[in-house]
Structures are given as structure tokens and as C-alpha cells.
């Protein structure tokens, strides 16, 4: 695998990647976990390169994670303050992209509330684009960091049974994870009430359950999703307490999974809604803070790999 070349210019989603692409990134991610655990966490792989963070949606952890990843690799990192930028003054998305492109960044990390918006921007710029979440479509670095977490803590993903529970319908994390885990050979299960199950989910290569206890049977990993507050107002769900009763991860429901099954959550959590506090903080079984750590490492791997693939100036266009 050492001589396998990751050939993509952008990372827009898990869709389009193959198993070797993913494993290449995860292996590099492994290396950066070791670096990040040292006292001095600095590499100069991206020295002289420019990384621009462009977050059209509020984000604390993903934006911070990309910033740290870029800085640790020695890149010049700029986070564009969208709230006060020209976007708010009526500039179109494409114009923003063209303007940024003229500043000649090497890497552009974009989060946007509309599915497909990141792909649209990627067509208008010369640099590498990394999707940090677009609408309810994809969030590929989340899936990669989850895979890295599982691989390091639980073991070989192939053949593992993994449940993804909660608001699948509105989740880009779920879409990327189903794709990624399928490519890596896991048996994926989706657990949600039907209002939060996307139509056609049964064709995603995952088994769909409405009964959480049945769905968790035999699972090695339980991934909970964040339930947005606005979903609980009676349109998709009657109430937070009903959701917790049937789909919140508590000790009883977890007991239907494999003994010592691991617990994951992409954060931020709604304690008492989708997950009980005691479970979220479980000393040996909760991987939630570890996911955050793996996030920085896997993003370093992604940044390095894409920066390497960037064509020399002058070659482009």
C-alpha cells in the first residue's frame, strides 16, 4: 500500500473513494496521532502553503480541528469570518469563490448549509477543496475520523457490526459513515423512527430498524447522532422525552448490544435526549473524546495528501 497513490484533487465526500484511498488516509492519520501525542507537535509538511477555512455554518469543533491540523503541519491558516464578510452583503457564492481563488490558497476547507454547495465551489477554484459538511449530504472527514477511532480502539472494521442511531434523515454524518463503513466491510445498521429514516435507506447497504433493542443486538459499536432541537417540536417527533424513551441510548438499550460494545457520538451531544450522561461518560466504552483527537490527526492526513496532489503553479489552467 505504501506505493498506492491517492489521486483525488478534492475531498468532497466518501462517495467516489475506494478502500485503498480510505486506508491510505487512515494510515497516515495513524502517524499523525503519534506526532500529536508528542510534546512538540510540529511538522513542516505544509510550510509555505495557505489553508483557508470557509465556514458558512457555525462550527466550533470542526473549524478548530482544521485550524489546528493546518497549523501543526506548518501551513498558514486563515479562517474567513463569514458572518461579517461580503456574503452577508449579497455577494453570490460563486463570486466569493472567485475572489478567494484570486488570493491563491492551496487548500480550501468549506462548510455550507446547502447540500451540493461545496461541490459547486470546487468547480470554480484551482486549489484543493475539502468538504467540512454540506447540508444533509456528506461530512467525509467525520467518517474518516470515526473509522480511525474504531480501527485503533476496537479493531479490524471488516465484519464488524455497527449501528448508527437517531436522526439519519438530516444527518450528513450518517450518510458519510454508511458509505465509509460499507467500503471497509462493516455490517451497518440504521436505527430510527420512520420519520427520521430517509426514503430508500434500505438500499444504502444497511439494515434498517425501528426498534432500537432489536437493532442493537450483536452490535460492536453504537454511533449516536445529534438530534437537532427543531426536530422535536411535533413535526418529526412528538417530544424529546418520547425520543429518549424509544431511541435514547441508556444502559438498558445498550445491554442489547454486544457486551463491552463501544459508544460514539460526533458531538455536540444533547445529554438526556439521544444519550444518557452515564453512557456518554463511560470510562472504558465511550470513545467520544477520542473521536475528537482522531479528528485532528485524520484532517492532517487529508490536508497533507491533497496538498501533495496539487498541481504545480502554472500547470493549472
Amino acid at each position, binding site marked *: 500500500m505504501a506505493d498506492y497513490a491517492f489521486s483525488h484533487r478534492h475531498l468532497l465526500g466518501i462517495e467516489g473513494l475506494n478502500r485503498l484511498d480510505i486506508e491510505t488516509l487512515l494510515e497516515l492519520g495513524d502517524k499523525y496521532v503519534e506526532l500529536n501525542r508528542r510534546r512538540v507537535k510540529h511538522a513542516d509538511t505544509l510550510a509555505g502553503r495557505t489553508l483557508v477555512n470557509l465556514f458558512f455554518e457555525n462550527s466550533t469543533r470542526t473549524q478548530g480541528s482544521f485550524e489546528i491540523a493546518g497549523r501543526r503541519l506548518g501551513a498558514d491558516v486563515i479562517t474567513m469570518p463569514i458572518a461579517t464578510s461580503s456574503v452577508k452583503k449579497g455577494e453570490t457564492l460563486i463570486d466569493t469563490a472567485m475572489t478567494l481563488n484570486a488570493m491563491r490558497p492551496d487548500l480550501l476547507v468549506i462548510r455550507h448549509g446547502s447540500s451540493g454547495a461545496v461541490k459547486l465551489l470546487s468547480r470554480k477554484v484551482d486549489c484543493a477543496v475539502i468538504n467540512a459538511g454540506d447540508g444533509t449530504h456528506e461530512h467525509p472527514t467525520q467518517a474518516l475520523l470515526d473509522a480511525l477511532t474504531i480501527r485503533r480502539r476496537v479493531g479490524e472494521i471488516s465484519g464488524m457490526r455497527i449501528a448508527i442511531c437517531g436522526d439519519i434523515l438530516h444527518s450528513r454524518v450518517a450518510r458519510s459513515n454508511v458509505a465509509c463503513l460499507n467500503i471497509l466491510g462493516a455490517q451497518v445498521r440504521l436505527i430510527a*423512527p*420512520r*420519520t427520521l429514516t430517509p426514503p430508500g435507506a434500505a438500499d444504502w447497504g444497511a439494515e434498517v430498524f*425501528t426498534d432500537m433493542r432489536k437493532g442493537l443486538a450483536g452490535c460492536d459499536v453504537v454511533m449516536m447522532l445529534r438530534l437537532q432541537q427543531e426536530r422535536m*417540536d*411535533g*413535526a*418529526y*417527533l*412528538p*417530544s424529546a*422525552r*418520547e425520543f429518549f*424513551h*424509544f431511541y435514547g441510548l441508556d444502559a438498558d438499550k445498550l445491554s442489547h448490544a454486544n457486551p463491552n460494545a463501544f459508544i460514539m457520538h460526533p458531538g455536540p451531544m444533547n445529554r438526556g435526549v439521544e444519550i444518557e450522561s452515564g453512557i456518554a461518560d463511560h470510562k472504558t466504552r465511550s470513545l467520544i473524546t477520542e473521536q475528537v483527537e482522531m479528528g485532528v490527526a485524520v484532517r492532517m492526513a487529508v490536508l497533507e495528501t491533497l496538498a501533495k496532489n496539487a498541481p504545480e503553479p502554472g500547470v493549472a489552467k
Partner: protein
Amino acid sequence: MTGLTAIYNARLIDPATGRDEVGGVLIENGVIVEFGPSVMKTAAADVKIDAKGKALAPGLIDLRVKTGEPGAENKETLQTASDAAAAGGVTTFVVMPDTDPVIDSVALVDFIQRRAEGVAKVKVYPAGGLTLGLDGAKMSEIGLIREAGAAFFTNGDRPVEDAGVLRRAMSYASSFDALVASRPDTPALSKNTVMNAGAFAARLGLRGAPPEAEWIALERDLMLAETTGVRLLADCISTARSLAAVERARKAGVKVSCSVASYSLFFNELDVGDYLTYCKVQPPFRSETDRMALIAGLKRGAIDAVVSAHDPQPTEDKRLPIADAAFGAVGLETLLPCLLSIAIREDIPLAQALKPVTSGPADLLGLPQGRIAKGAPADLVLFDPAAPWACDRDDLVSRSKNSPFDGRKFEGRVLRTWVNGQTVYERG
């Protein structure tokens, strides 16, 4: 009750199996332990009841009853409704959530169950409101309310107009395999109407509800049931075309069942006659063609449930110009006589005619009663299948007397009713 009770020398009718033969049942601890021709006068029982050749059938199950409890106890309470039910041979009924407050929470379901346990002679199950306060906007806690014991979910007489809300509520309910009942109606077409639209309404100078009001809503409900996979009960359909739509959808694999109000099998629009407010009901009495189509449906087993659509209204809300009068008719005491009369007049075997008030609704709700079988609760009704009598509303047990059957002749009368082997009604 301890010991054995035998009811012998009966014409035993069990719609679930089609049984119609001379025999009896043996009851122990409220449960049927033996039945059939072998149960005779010589049975070793502590209590022996001679049925004198009259018909013995499972007690009726009525999927649509309104009481005034909580909120309008002047109309009917759970107690008076259950007394009326017992007198009508109805041993199980479902109360609709259109009360004040609406039955849309675990606490209200619990209230109905506790009240019924204390005061009702017959078995009472609450239906849960599909949306909060029946507002047609936000779904209720369907999962928790179902766990608390709601029989099914419905918006009662306030149809959910927003198809998006209904779709999501159906979809959500299907996660729990809950039954959703919907009375198909399009308020934009039926608002402020009094009776069926047509020539007769025009002659009376009354605003009529066109059957399209039912068809449009029903077709919408059927489509949403198909795409969401929910179990749908098309509640109180009243036209030939509605029944055809349900049968067509069922054939296509949609999980749909249907109910018909007993009055829709008995009356047509002409019965509104001289502005009779007791005949002002929702859905309205339809055309004779519609009525005959529903009876044909009953004959071929296409109707899953016949309901009383019991809706008590006090005199002060009925003795008004028909446009101002309240909708609704009481029906618990006339459900069985109405069906028996139709069975005789239309030559329908009793075991067939009674299926939609016994095993039909029992199967929809997954109840053990509604059948004569070993281990089934001894909920039974003894009736004279041919006794002629005329209904007099003043003789009704129900607190409200608003019956369209007042003065009508019936063939078939309840003699005695048992719930869990205990006599709850005996005709004096």
C-alpha cells in the same frame, strides 16, 4: 365468580369461524373453557342457564364511541355509556379522543382507563389523539401513548388537513406498528353542511356535503398509507365509491381496513325527511345506491368493522333549526338490532353480519375477545334474532336520547349480556 357456568340450548354463533349451530358454552373464572354441541343441560356446572334456543354470540366490539367524559358529562359519562353498551350487547368499546381535554397524553389515557375500571360494566379502551389537542399540526406522543394502552390513533371528527403533518404522523406511527384511524372528510367541501348533497337537499333548501369531500380525503389517506406503510383504518366511510377505493387499495397491498357507521347501512338521505335533526350526522346519510353498495360490501366481507358512531347530544343541542343543530346520534343500543334487521331483510347469514362487530374489530386491535373460543374471555350476548320491536328513544339507557332510530321497527333484540362471565345486562 367461582365454579362453572353453563349456557346451554343456544344457537351458537361465532363469526370468527362461521359457526352457527345448537350448543352451549362452559365458563370458568370469566373465560370460555368449552363450547359446542357437547355443552348440554347435563353439563357438570354450578350455574346452568337455559338459552331456550336463542342466539348466543360474542359480545359486540364497537370501535367508535364518544362519551362526554371528560368535559361534557351532561351528554354521557363512561358509566352511562357502558350501561347503554351492556343493554345493546356491546361488551367492548373504544372511546374517541375528542373530549375536553383531548385524550392526547399518557395521563389522559390513564385517566380513562382508571375511570372505566371503576365505573364501567364493559371493557373500555381509549383511542389516542393523533395530533396534540387534535390541532392537526403537531403529533402526539404516539409511542408512549401506545405503550400506555391506546387502542389506535385518530384525529376523531377533526380531519388532519395538512397532508405533510398526516404523512409524518402516519410514518411515525408505523415505527410502532400503530393503527391510525382517519375519517375521510375535506372540510373545505363539507363545512357548514347539514346532510348529503343532492337533489333532496336542494329541495329542502339545505346545504349538502358532497361525497367528493369523502373521496378526496380518502384517496389522499390511501396514498399516504401506501407510501408510509402505516396500518390505516378508513373510519366511517359512507359511499359506494369509498368502499371500492378501499378494496382496490387493499388489493394493491395497502394495509387498509374500513369501518361503516351502522346508520349508513340503515338510512338514506330521504330519511332526513321533514328536517329531522336526529338524522343530522357526520358522515351524512347518503343515497340509496350508496346504502345498497355498503350492504353488498357487508355481504362479501369487505367491511372490517361496523360501528355505532355513538355521539350523544342533549336535547337543547338538537331541538334547533337543522342548520344550527349539533351533529351526532347515539347508537350503542341500536347497533345489534340494526345489524340483525339488515341481516334478516337482506338475507345475510348471522355469522357473516356479525363479523364486523366481533372478530373483525378484535383482529384490528389484536384483542382476545370477540370470538367463542377456548381461553377467550366470556364476553357474550344472548339475543332473540327475530323478535320484532319498535325503538322508542325514551326507553334508551343512554343519558342522551338523540337516536335516528326512534320509532323505527327492528327485528332482533338483546336478552342478556355477559362480560368476563358476569351478567351485566338482563332484559326485564
